[in-house]
């Protein structure tokens, strides 16, 4: 046996080498994308939006569903445009699928006439039948628009008439801004829903509940679109999806991009993509440090107004010393609102000027110049703050304040720990109050618990949103602090929120906020609404149920020169559109104004 000649490389060693080599080569070959992968084209727009992939994500895109692919973001308007979109600067609607719309105050009806000659991606014509079916399905999903109407019907192929049960010109926004979906997909469900209600039953009945459950399980294979794009279903991955041109869709001849690629992800996931210039536009809430990085990379920051911001909420149930408006006014005088805004959002956090309870940008639209003159702007004046507090029995001794009841002024300022902007706001407010002489500490609370605490009143001071970025009518902005985070709505969660009594006395006399805020959004008479808005604004300014700090402007990166030629100048009227309501980028694309390079 020992005579058997030994080879330099044994058979075992050769097999090992061969196996190892093959595995190595296979691994190297493996590191390459598939040849079937969708390739980039020359005229692409790259956006970003978080979405779910199937089986969770689906194409039942009606408002009110969740986990729809694309469904809850601005890009849905490229697939299924609404009848009209609002121009926030001009304060008027621009027709998209609608040719005309009108309110008949005498007949209490609202009529929408759709354009003729438009077709769905399945070749069927877009008409009144589609809009009626959409609205019946929305009723099954308890859409708020149905709070204002009793029925909806088509009077011809293109005309839809809503009968108003609760007349309000607020309904106009629901009628015009709600996307229209295909009757071919939803007609059957609309018929069932109409039959349910015609039979005297509603969604709370066992039959209604069953129908609702079945509807939510509806999973169309695709979105039948009327807009310039449709979803390339095969392109959907956990990382991105692609919208491709739908040649017969509305504005297909105007949009200048052949494809829209949407990257999936929340702010942290999307940030590197923006930095690497893979994304042309994103609506995510980027913190100031990230925004600076974008700017350093030559990425333009678009700053559309959001018509809302952060305010200091005071729980009057726990801090009865602040029930006197002078104590709240003192806070408004002592806090440097511009500093809070700058720290929280950089140039996108602008100090609130009018303290009227709704966006400064809208104040001149709703209040006369004389009434605006009555609004106190609470310019930073620590001495005035100290005088106001002293006048109600507070005392400063040594470096700290004691309240009228002799207790030291010691407060926690709670904020959403995960929200970069609100964390910065809470900490800065706590620091400013401490510098003034209050013993104050910031308290980060996990976001889900924070929302619960705000309703239940488990806080002393807190940072929370004021204003409304979806509805132009100030009614919605007033409702946020006065109803939602106060006892009318907080009671649903077993708390009293800020616990601010809605019946108050002002310099102008007694006021019932509930009555006036409701009146601000009710009826068909805009002049009457303005009168109510003025009364609420003046009272809000005097009583400060919450202390508005800053108004948020978007910090949307807008990459120019890579795939998109340029965005309009910052003072262009379209750039005043609220990005989460009537997104300017979408409207620019539909108008053909946003050009590829």
């Amino acid at each position, binding site marked *: 046996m020992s005579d058997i000649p030994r080879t330099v490389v044994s058979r075992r060693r050769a097999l090992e080498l061969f196996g190892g080599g093959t595995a190595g080569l296979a691994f190297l070959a493996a590191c390459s994308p598939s040849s079937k992968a969708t390739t980039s084209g020359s005229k692409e727009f790259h956006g970003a939006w978080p979405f779910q992939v199937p*089986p969770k994500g689906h194409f039942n895109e009606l408002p009110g569903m969740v986990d729809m692919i694309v469904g809850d973001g601005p890009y849905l308007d490229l697939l299924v445009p609404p009848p009209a979109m609002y121009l926030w600067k001009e304060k008027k609607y621009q027709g998209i699928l609608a040719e005309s719309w009108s309110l008949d105050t005498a007949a209490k009806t609202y009529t929408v006439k759709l354009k003729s000659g438009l077709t769905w991606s399945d070749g069927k014509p877009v008409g009144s039948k589609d809009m009626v079916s959409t609205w019946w399905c929305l009723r099954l999903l308890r859409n708020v628009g149905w709070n204002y109407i009793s029925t909806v019907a088509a009077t011809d192929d293109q005309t839809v008439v809503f009968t108003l049960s609760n007349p309000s010109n607020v309904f106009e926004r629901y009628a015009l801004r709600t996307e229209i979906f295909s009757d071919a997909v939803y007609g059957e469900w609309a018929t069932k829903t109409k039959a349910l209600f015609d039979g005297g039953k509603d969604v709370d009945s066992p039959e209604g509940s069953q129908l609702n459950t079945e509807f*939510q399980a509806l999973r169309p294979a695709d979105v039948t679109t009327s807009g310039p794009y449709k979803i390339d279903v095969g392109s959907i991955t956990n990382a991105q999806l692609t919208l491709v041109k739908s040649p017969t869709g509305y504005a297909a001849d105007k949009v200048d991009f052949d494809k829209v690629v949407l990257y999936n992800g929340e702010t942290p996931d999307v940030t590197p993509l923006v930095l690497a210039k893979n994304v042309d536009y994103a609506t995510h809430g980027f913190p100031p440090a990230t925004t600076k990085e974008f700017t350093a990379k030559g990425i333009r920051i678009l700053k559309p107004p959001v018509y809302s911001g952060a305010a200091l909420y005071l729980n009057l149930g726990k801090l009865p010393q602040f029930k006197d408006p002078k104590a709240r006014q003192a806070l408004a005088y002592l806090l440097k609102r511009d500093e809070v805004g700058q720290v929280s959002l950089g140039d996108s956090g602008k100090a609130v000027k009018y303290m009227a309870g709704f966006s400064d940008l809208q104040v001149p639209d709703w209040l006369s110049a004389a009434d605006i003159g009555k609004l106190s702007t609470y310019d930073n004046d620590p001495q005035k703050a100290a005088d106001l507090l002293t006048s109600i029995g507070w005392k400063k001794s040594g470096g700290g304040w004691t309240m009228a009841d002799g207790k030291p002024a010691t407060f926690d300022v709670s904020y959403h720990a995960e929200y970069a902007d609100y964390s910065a706001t809470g900490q800065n407010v706590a620091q400013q109050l401490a510098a003034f002489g209050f013993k104050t500490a910031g308290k980060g609370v996990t976001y889900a618990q924070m929302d619960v605490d705000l309703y239940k009143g488990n806080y002393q001071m807190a940072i929370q949103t004021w204003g409304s970025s979806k509805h132009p009518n100030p009614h919605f902005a007033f409702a946020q602090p006065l109803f*939602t985070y106060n006892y009318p709505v907080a009671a649903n969660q077993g708390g009293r929120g800020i616990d601010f009594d809605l019946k108050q006395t002002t310099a102008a006399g007694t006021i019932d906020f509930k009555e006036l805020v409701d009146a601000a959004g009710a009826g068909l008479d805009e002049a009457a609404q303005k009168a109510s808005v003025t009364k609420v604004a003046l009272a809000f300014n005097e009583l400060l149920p919450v202390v508005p700090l800053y108004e948020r402007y978007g910090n949307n990166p807008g990459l120019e020169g890579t795939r998109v030629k340029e965005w309009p100048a910052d003072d262009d009227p379209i750039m005043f559109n609220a990005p989460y309501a009537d997104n300017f980028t979408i409207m620019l694309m539909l108008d053909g104004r946003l050009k590829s390079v």
Partner: protein
Amino acid sequence: MVAAPTAPEIRPARLRRITVQVYRTYAVRRLLKAALTVYLVATGTFFLVRLLPGNPVQVYINTQMSQYGVSYQDAASSAAGLFSFDPSRPVLEQYREYLTGVARGDFGQSLLAPGTSVLHIVFEYLPWTVFSVGLGVLISCTLGSLLGMLMAYRRGGVLDHILLFVGSLLHSIPNYLLALLVIVFLGVRLDILPFAEMRGAYSPGVTPEFSVDFVSDAMYHASLPITVYVLTTIGGWMLVMKASTVETLGEDYVTVARARGLRDRRIASAYVGRNAVLPLFPQLAITLGFVVGGSILVEQVFQYQGIGYLLLQSVQRRDYPVLQGILLIVTIAVVAANLVSDLLYSRLDPRVRVEGGAS
């Protein structure tokens, strides 16, 4: 003369004896323990997820309000039309319903995607994690063992010091942090990594199938998470293997092998390596058991369609059934794997079966 016992007197005693005998059977004991573990996890998970602040309805409403500026009225109305979940229902009633469903193999439906079963969702995500983390652990363990042995043989030398430093450094970096560093430095700063293209589990336009093209594509997309898993765990394997090898090198049988004049290569592979690697196996089993926990943030960073990504999303949105389903399915998988390995091990080493009772 002893009277014959009557039948009713015998049966309970015999039954008890049979029961004790059956219980003492190793396989049965292991099965019962596995079932008890699964039950305890199912119960614990059910109650723990409900202790999270906020319920799905509240989280939905607050997300709509805070992120999309939707009014409370609109959000609450949508939620009422959307959720079949009723937070006011007695928890024990929900618990009973949940356990009954689990016993039937029905893990329920997602609260946020009504009509979609939890099992369907979980099995869309789980294979990607098993693939990426499993491969990462295998590569890390193999490479780490080889490097650990090398360190032991060259202990005190330059190579040992360098590898020790690199291994300790990598071991101390959390995997999600390394994932972020990879993206920021290689993807953004140096622009040498097409990470936008590499996100996800496979490329857009590609259909999952058993083909070389698809496997190649999946490997391409998994390469970043796998690299991160390997780099952040290899240090541990290296250090354990080094310690084990050093200990083994001092054993008498190694000295004897050397005295017999065996070649170093043969001693390293047949005597040292085989014995030194033994302590690594329990650690490997434990590591595989934590597949989900270790992948959560890495999958989020790379937008990789794995079970960790799904788990994080479900926690954030309080999708109770999906959350419970993921945790329970992973528990069942780990318990089943342990059970199988115990049963197999008992066949290999009968002492395991005998210990504590008759087989």
